């Protein structure tokens, strides 16, 4: 007898393996038994979950946390979470973005504009029960001023600080090197000294090992799983009042279609999009019961930036931007060749506003738009005239040529990951083509290198604007240029305009808000006239939430604004659970688990018995 033919009971047969696998799947599938499935309609779930007392607000986000340390974090999700965990000195009013008290109740400059005194509130306590004082704030700023590791995320806020002291628990004094109007907009989380002074290396400490994390914001972070979720609970002692939901969860969805599906199902309460819902996603959600799509003015601008001739502070020019773009008339002609209305209608499908000035209209204090006489409106005929007048006429082939005789063919840097760039690029190609200008779209995963090297002609550009516009204004100053061609500057597009810089310095030293706003508007006007930054659109914040889970939630600005990524904690702090709402949940019930296990065991036993009977080989089967 061949030993291969002997029945071998100890050997796992493929059939049995497959059966076991099937049984295992059945077992786990049983976790979601139809006897108590995760409901398809959140309304059905509402009545079921009303029995539960815990109200959970789950936010689907498209980013993961880079770091939970406020000294290191730079991603929007992380900084938004820090807004919830720690108080800042000041906050922004949700109605109109003006500065309102945070940890500080009052802030005043000295007569010489070089010293600011902040009065720190006495009713803010850390979640471990200790009092939050001016000493915590002073320690936070001093740490950033003296430790490069601690300056990673917010170092730019303290570069103009000469000295920071806390003469008393309720008094913080900041001395400046030169006047700085943005002292009511120090977006720096103040941390508890008694916790953070134990940290040895700020450049590597991610604040993600010990929970709950001590803070004094409206929420306390209680749990975190990298690339999965962040859980927060209300801070019952928060000076402004505790949030209404029992728990706030930020759940990371790498795929936004899956996030939308989770919202539709009721597994999450809110979906933010990446950075907004696509028109298709928004359209698919608009007809859904119990879902509200928040389509509101956004805080971003979307522009076509010009390479004005890359240069460094040492005066050296580098890069290879087109020579014709150094001509202001050419740049203005390009403004007139772009039909913003078509872009808003066709590319953004109505989820944007036509671009005008540099700062989006939702920031009403600083928003500027050109007068009718100044406006470079869509007018291809006039654009052609401007190009002719500038000396860039069409040749026999209908192509406009550079001074060196070569046909103009602009390279546009575009983000390969941004569908808007590609779509707008096609329109631009067509419109410029009609003017006799060629366009090559360079869509790259990483545009940083050619951009910083000045090896482009035009580039799709966009920034989120803060309530205080200083940062987005500063990136176009001569001071932001790199020191040398080999260095990295803070510049966005190598713009260096003397008049613009003068206005920038004036507004930074102007402590009167109305006067400062006027100076900022003059800067925007100057930027518009130079033709360096063609703001084509202000994309909307398009997000959605379940009205059967969230009864009310505050947008910013209040009248019409975004919910996710606010300059403040207003949305999540103000959110009120719907009456019938329980929690957003994807959990399985214990009944389902038990039945699933029973079903799995039954299948296993059945399959085992079946094979056991089949394995009863007859004598004929054996040698």
């Amino acid at each position, binding site marked *: 007898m061949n030993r291969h033919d002997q029945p071998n009971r100890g050997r796992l047969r493929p059939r049995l393996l497959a059966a076991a696998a099937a049984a295992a799947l059945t077992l786990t599938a049983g976790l979601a038994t139809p006897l108590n499935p*995760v409901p398809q309609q959140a309304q059905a779930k509402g009545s079921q979950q009303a029995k539960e007392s815990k109200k959970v607000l789950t936010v689907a986000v498209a980013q993961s946390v880079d770091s939970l340390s406020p000294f290191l974090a730079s991603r929007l999700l992380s900084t938004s979470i820090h807004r919830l965990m720690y108080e800042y000195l000041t906050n922004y009013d949700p109605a109109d973005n003006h500065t309102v008290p945070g940890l500080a109740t009052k802030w005043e400059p000295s007569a010489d504009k070089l010293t600011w005194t902040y009065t720190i509130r006495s009713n803010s306590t850390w979640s471990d029960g200790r009092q939050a004082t001016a000493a915590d704030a002073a320690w936070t700023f001093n740490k950033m001023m003296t430790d490069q590791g601690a300056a990673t995320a917010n170092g730019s806020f303290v570069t103009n600080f000469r000295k920071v002291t806390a003469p008393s628990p309720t008094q913080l004094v900041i001395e400046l090197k030169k006047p700085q109007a943005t002292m009511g907009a120090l977006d720096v989380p103040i941390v508890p000294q008694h916790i953070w002074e134990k940290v040895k290396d700020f450049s590597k400490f991610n604040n993600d090992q010990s929970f709950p994390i001590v803070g004094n914001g409206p929420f306390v972070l209680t749990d975190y799983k990298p690339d999965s979720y962040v859980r927060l609970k209300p801070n019952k002692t928060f000076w402004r009042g505790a949030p209404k939901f029992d728990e706030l969860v930020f759940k990371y969805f790498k795929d936004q279609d899956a996030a939308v599906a989770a919202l539709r199902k009721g*597994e999450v309460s809110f979906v933010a999009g990446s950075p907004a819902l696509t028109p298709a996603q928004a359209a698919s959600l608009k007809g859904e019961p119990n879902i509200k799509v928040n389509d509101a003015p956004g805080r971003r601008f979307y522009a076509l930036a010009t390479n004005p001739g890359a240069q460094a502070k040492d005066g050296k020019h580098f890069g290879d931007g087109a020579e014709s773009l150094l001509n202001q008339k050419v740049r203005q002609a390009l403004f007139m060749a772009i039909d913003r209305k078509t872009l808003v209608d066709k590319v953004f499908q109505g989820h944007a506003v036509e671009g005008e000035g540099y700062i989006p209209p939702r920031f009403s204090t600083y928003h500027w738009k050109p007068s009718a006489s100044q406006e470079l409106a869509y007018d291809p005929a006039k654009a052609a005239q401007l190009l002719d007048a500038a000396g860039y006429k069409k040749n026999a082939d209908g192509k406009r040529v550079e001074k060196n005789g070569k046909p103009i063919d602009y390279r546009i840097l575009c983000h390969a990951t941004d569908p808007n760039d590609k779509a707008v690029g096609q329109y631009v190609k067509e419109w410029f083509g009609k003017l006799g200008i060629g366009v090559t779209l360079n869509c790259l995963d990483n545009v940083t290198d050619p951009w910083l090297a000045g090896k482009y002609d035009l580039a799709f550009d966009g920034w989120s604007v803060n309530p205080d516009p200083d940062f987005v204004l500063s990136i176009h100053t001569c001071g932001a240029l790199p020191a040398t061609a080999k260095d990295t500057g803070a510049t966005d597009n190598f713009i260096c305009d003397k008049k613009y810089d003068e206005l920038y310095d004036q507004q930074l030293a102007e402590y009167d808000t109305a006067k400062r706003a006027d100076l900022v508007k003059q800067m925007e006007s100057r930027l518009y006239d130079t033709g360096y930054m063609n703001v084509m659109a202000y994309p909307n914040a398009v997000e959605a939430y379940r009205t059967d889970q969230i009864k009310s939630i505050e947008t910013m600005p209040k009248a019409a604004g975004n919910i996710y990524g606010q300059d403040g904690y207003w949305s999540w702090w103000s959110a009120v659970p719907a009456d019938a709402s329980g929690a957003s949940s994807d959990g399985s019930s214990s009944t389902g688990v038990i039945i699933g296990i029973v079903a799995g065991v039954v299948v296993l036993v059945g399959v085992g018995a079946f094979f056991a009977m089949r394995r009863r080989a007859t004598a004929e089967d054996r040698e």
Partner: protein
Amino acid sequence: MTAEATPSLVEATDGPAQAGPSVRGPRARTTTAYLRYVAGKLGGAAVSLLAVLVTSFFLFRLIPGDPVKYMTGGRQVSAGQLAYYRVEFGLDLPLWRQFTDYCGKALTGDLGTSYQFRAPVIDKISEALPNTLLLTGTAFVLYTALGIFLGTRSAWRNGGTSDRLNTGLALTLYSIPSFWLGLLLIIVFSVGMGPIPGLFPTGGMESGGKEGFAYVLDVAHHLILPVVTLVAVEYGQTLLVTRSALLDEMGSDYLTTARAKGLRDDLVRRRHAVPNALLPTVTLIFINLGRTVAGVILVETVFSWPGLGGLFYQALSVPDLPLVQGLFFVFASAVIVMNTLADLIYPLLDPRVGR
């Protein structure tokens, strides 16, 4: 080859002494030859690992640009801060020093510090690796078992209805993009469609806030859809390779002999044909096993699974050089290790290998 020439996979663990006919010569000589073979393979693997270490360092240094620019993209930074970052990440050192430091540290398990997460690369990999292994490992076991099972059935009933159905379905599923199938499963089985209720979570690995057995069940619940997606698109490959290898064996004399001895068809297939046809499948199994470590970017993305695939994507998008090169080293090492293991197992399956 005779019926006795090749042991089954399980019996092969008894060692080479039982593994074949007399053509192998005396046991001592066979053992020496095998050891020589093993030493050769291990040496080759060591050289490959060294090559990977060198490649992982220099390959990503070919990416143009300054890493510090990637690190600080979109932020206001002073010249002092830029200089600080260069020192902190060793970018101020000459390339040869960076390389020797990298190799020295790599040998002690230190793969550097991630730019974006400011955490040791090895820690980020350790966080994500178990998650990836849970997903891809579970799927691997299932699609391998299913592929071998259906592959042998198909070959045995070559040309029949079940064969045509099996291969047709397998080829169809193999051709379907995994992310598309994943999204489809989410719509049907997670959100629910028509009479089908939403049974499974739409994404993630856990709901959070659960402990003990409840946590295990919760993870299992989250695991089902991504595993089904992976199994559906992957089992076809194993099925086709197994089927093809078995078809090559079908006409062999030793199978006729086995049948002539009056053995059940089932036994002839399982005990005689399949073991001899397994070599190409074993190769594929080990290649797939190596791949399991790399994760599955598309499926991990669709189901928001916190694994290495997603981490690799995040690393590339910066690019976070230490993390990219660390992951590259881990992925390549896994493939080398698995291929070496396959090489070491071949002689046990087929004594002609390695002689």
